[in-house]
């Protein structure tokens, strides 16, 4: 009982987080930046930040993750980090030769007052940025938001600092990816192709963090949205943001800068959210939905109806990032399950509002996000009203083990299983994968624990 100390009684805590359901902004910014082709993310702060982010992403993806750091020293923290960042830009372009450096700040550099916009401008003015190369930035202090907002801020940086409007519209739609896996981004591109919609997806970590074994260590793997593609987003017909927290801010920025209208849909996880995404994209790109996609949907629906009896009425606790938790909760309800306890460490009113709408169908459900919404609280809720299934990142395994309930890994980070970078959770095939996983853990448990006379062959 690793969590033997978790009490049933829920007390108000004064700003203390136990076993968090979030981490800090910079790692999100770093992850987003990896979704640009030829980009070296740069952490403007102490050396440890960058090492931790790289380690965390490496554990999650089992891939090399490259990023540079300003390596703050005591001097830098007194006199400001401008010199460190300017020296970094020099070093990076001369040694690692990326097409673009994506700088994000940290709690340290923000607190001492470094202004990334001013410093990157100075770098440009001083001729430190070679012809045809770029430096973009995002402000991501660790004491604001979470890894999810850090991701959103870097995606805003991409839109604001690259999009151009030439005055001539392009027959393409921007798809702004919320924080999702490389496999999910690959699936979004596949669905768009099947639809016949011309899109620019950004960021795009497929073929970056799910790179094949080739006998080479590619410092800049072949994937990622390209700079010409990013520039062209200002001329697109419209944007669709996949997620109101991690993607919408970039859509707003594009609208503001280049007048590209946008629509926000939930991340396409589960049947309802995927339906809405397909409808939104087919409308935006003026294409009709092909039979291929209708059949895919039909296969998901077929599995849902075939196995309905095993889902119905099952109680679920889940935690994770808002843009994933929202559609996942909806999908669980669509399957006849009862999401009861839900936490997300990321703050924001949008989550509360959206969850309140969705959970009208599950009266009595608890949900909380932001400060105090950690997995300790989730566990306490579960002790008060037990559930049949837990869904969350790898850190859920402590709770699942203590409570002896089935557990499905979903979200970030997953450091003890593979699959998330290869198989999508989005789209109809992603829905099918979730259905299979949920059924699998329920049935494995039944097979393991059923008394002999109730041990069944056919299920």
């Amino acid at each position, binding site marked *: 009982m*690793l969590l033997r*100390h978790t009490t049933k009684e829920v007390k108000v*805590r*004064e*700003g*203390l*987080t*136990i076993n*968090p359901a979030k981490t*800090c902004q910079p*790692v999100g910014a770093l992850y987003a930046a990896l979704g640009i082709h030829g980009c070296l993310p*740069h952490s403007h*702060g*102490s*050396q*440890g930040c*960058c*090492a*931790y*982010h*790289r*380690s*965390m992403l*490496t*554990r999650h993806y*089992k*891939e*090399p*993750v*490259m*990023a*540079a*750091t300003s*390596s703050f*020293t*005591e001097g*830098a*923290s007194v006199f400001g980090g401008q010199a*460190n960042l300017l*020296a*970094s*830009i*020099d*070093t990076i372009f*001369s*040694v690692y030769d990326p097409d673009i450096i994506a700088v994000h700040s940290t*709690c*340290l550099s923000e*607190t*001492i007052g470094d202004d990334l916009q001013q410093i990157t401008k100075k770098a440009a003015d001083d001729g430190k940025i070679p012809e045809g190369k770029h430096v973009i930035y995002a402000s991501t202090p*660790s*004491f*604001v938001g979470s890894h999810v907002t850090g991701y959103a801020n870097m995606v805003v940086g991409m839109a604001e600092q690259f999009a151009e409007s030439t005055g001539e519209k392009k027959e393409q739609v921007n798809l702004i990816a919320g924080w999702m896996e490389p496999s999910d981004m690959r699936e979004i591109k596949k669905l768009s192709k099947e639809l016949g919609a011309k899109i620019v997806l950004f960021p795009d970590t497929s073929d970056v963090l799910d790179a094949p*074994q080739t*006998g*080479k*260590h*590619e410092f800049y793997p072949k994937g990622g949205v390209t700079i010409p593609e990013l520039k062209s987003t200002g001329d697109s017909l419209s944007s669709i943001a996949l997620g109101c927290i991690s993607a919408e801010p970039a859509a707003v920025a594009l609208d503001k800068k280049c007048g590209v209208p946008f629509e926000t849909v939930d991340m396409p996880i589960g049947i309802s959210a995927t339906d809405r995404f397909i409808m939104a994209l087919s409308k935006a790109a003026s294409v009709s939905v092909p039979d291929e996609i209708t059949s895919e949907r039909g296969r998901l629906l077929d599995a849902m109806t075939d196995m309905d009896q095993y889902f119905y009425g099952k109680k679920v606790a889940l935690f994770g990032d808002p843009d994933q938790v929202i559609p996942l909760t909806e999908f669980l309800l669509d399957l006849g399950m009862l999401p009861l306890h839900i936490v997300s*460490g990321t703050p924001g009113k949008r989550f509360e509002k959206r969850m309140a709408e969705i959970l009208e169908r599950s009266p009595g459900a608890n949900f909380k996000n932001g400060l105090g919404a950690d997995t300790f609280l989730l566990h306490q809720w579960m002790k008060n009203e037990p559930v049949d299934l837990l869904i969350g990142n790898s*850190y859920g395994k402590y709770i699942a083990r203590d409570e002896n309930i089935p557990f499905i890994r979903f979200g970030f980070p997953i450091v003890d299983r593979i699959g998330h970078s290869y198989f999508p959770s989005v789209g109809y095939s992603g829905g099918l994968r979730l259905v299979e996983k949920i059924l699998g853990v329920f049935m494995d448990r039944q097979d393991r624990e059923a008394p002999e006379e109730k041990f069944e062959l056919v299920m």
Partner: protein
Amino acid sequence: MEQIQILKEREKQIFEKKDGGAAFDISCETTSLSGSVSQRACVFCGSRVVLYPVADALHLVHGPIGCAAYTWDIRGSVSSGPELHRLSFSTDLQETDVIFGGEKKLYASLIELIEQYQPKAAFIYSTCIIGIIGDDIDAVCRKVAKETSIPVLPVHSEGFKGTKKDGYRAACISLMKLVGTAETNDISPYSINILGEFNLAGEAWIIREYYEKMGIQVVSTMTGDGRVDAVRKAHGATLNVVQCSGSMTSLAKDMEEKYAIPFIRVSYFGIEDMASALYDVAKHFPDRPDIMEKAREIVKSEVERLYPQLQKFKAALSGKKAAIYVGGAFKTFSLIKALRSLGMSVVLAGSQTGNSDDYGNLKEMCDEGTVIVDDSNPVELSKFILEKEADLLIGGVKERPIAFKLGVAFCDHNHERKIPLAGFIGMYNFALEVYQSVMSPVWQFAPRKGGLK
């Protein structure tokens, strides 16, 4: 494979051992160059890894959420009892705290946590931002210690205030405050503290058992499977036995100064070093020849069992080449010897935090043509692995996927090891792991080393 460029400013941190080559003068113990893709971490990381295994203490990270989140149960430092160290506690500082200070929040968090978890002591880690906003964590710790009657120890581990080594030092300073605060009546004169052993995969238990078999009392292990009460009476031991010298030598020196406890440096990796670790301790108790006798018996029986088992691995691995890039330089010495005993040679040896003595020793140990690096980066590592045609890389979490992408075998000799690599049994496990990775059938499908082979 195109030539990979080495950064000019890094030239002094790379050395290739050659006959009649340039004089040995490797630059180390410097901060990393701004803009490098360094594999190093920060001061906080250093403190956290040293103190984390104290299992019945509360570890509260004072700062924004990241520092606590990234260090939540990522090291396999196992405990035989309490497991409070495996949870994650953070004051989760917000923007308003940064403006108005986080002392109140720290105080409230400590009171709540100590009441709920009843820890034996509490370690409060300062992160970067605390050093900037100027919270007086010492004062808060004193106040809480008084109110709760447990030791509440500040750890000054602001990330930017030096390197990981400075974090080790900050951790040792906190431990030193605990040492000497309990009775030592039950401690025999034939006793030691095991320092710098973190019980990854249960290694401290193996080492402890050897010493106990020799008739020696182990007062404390710092900090593997650590307990506050054991640390408090560590000053009662007769000798400090220090492994992983980078992290714990400063504590050993402080204890020598304050309590006149001498210390020796040992390593538990490989047959030679493991045997020396037992003999060197036995030598410290000349009036008890039975201790040395026992040490010889242990070594003899372990080696007799181990030696034949290693032959299969040696036959397969002879002539293979290894690259080593680990945290501390001391570990590389043992690894070189261990690899040689398997018939392997070392073509690249490096560390994140070695000092000039370490690198001098390393140069003496290495064969001609071996590359020695300090604070390396993935570009360099890839370059030398390919150029030197290494068959195996030994490293940590960030190096693993680089090796596999290059089609090179890998062994984690860092905190993600899953099996004990220390002790005689550890040598068997190490050989097995190296053998399994080098000889794996998957390599027949994989293009290797840039497609050259």
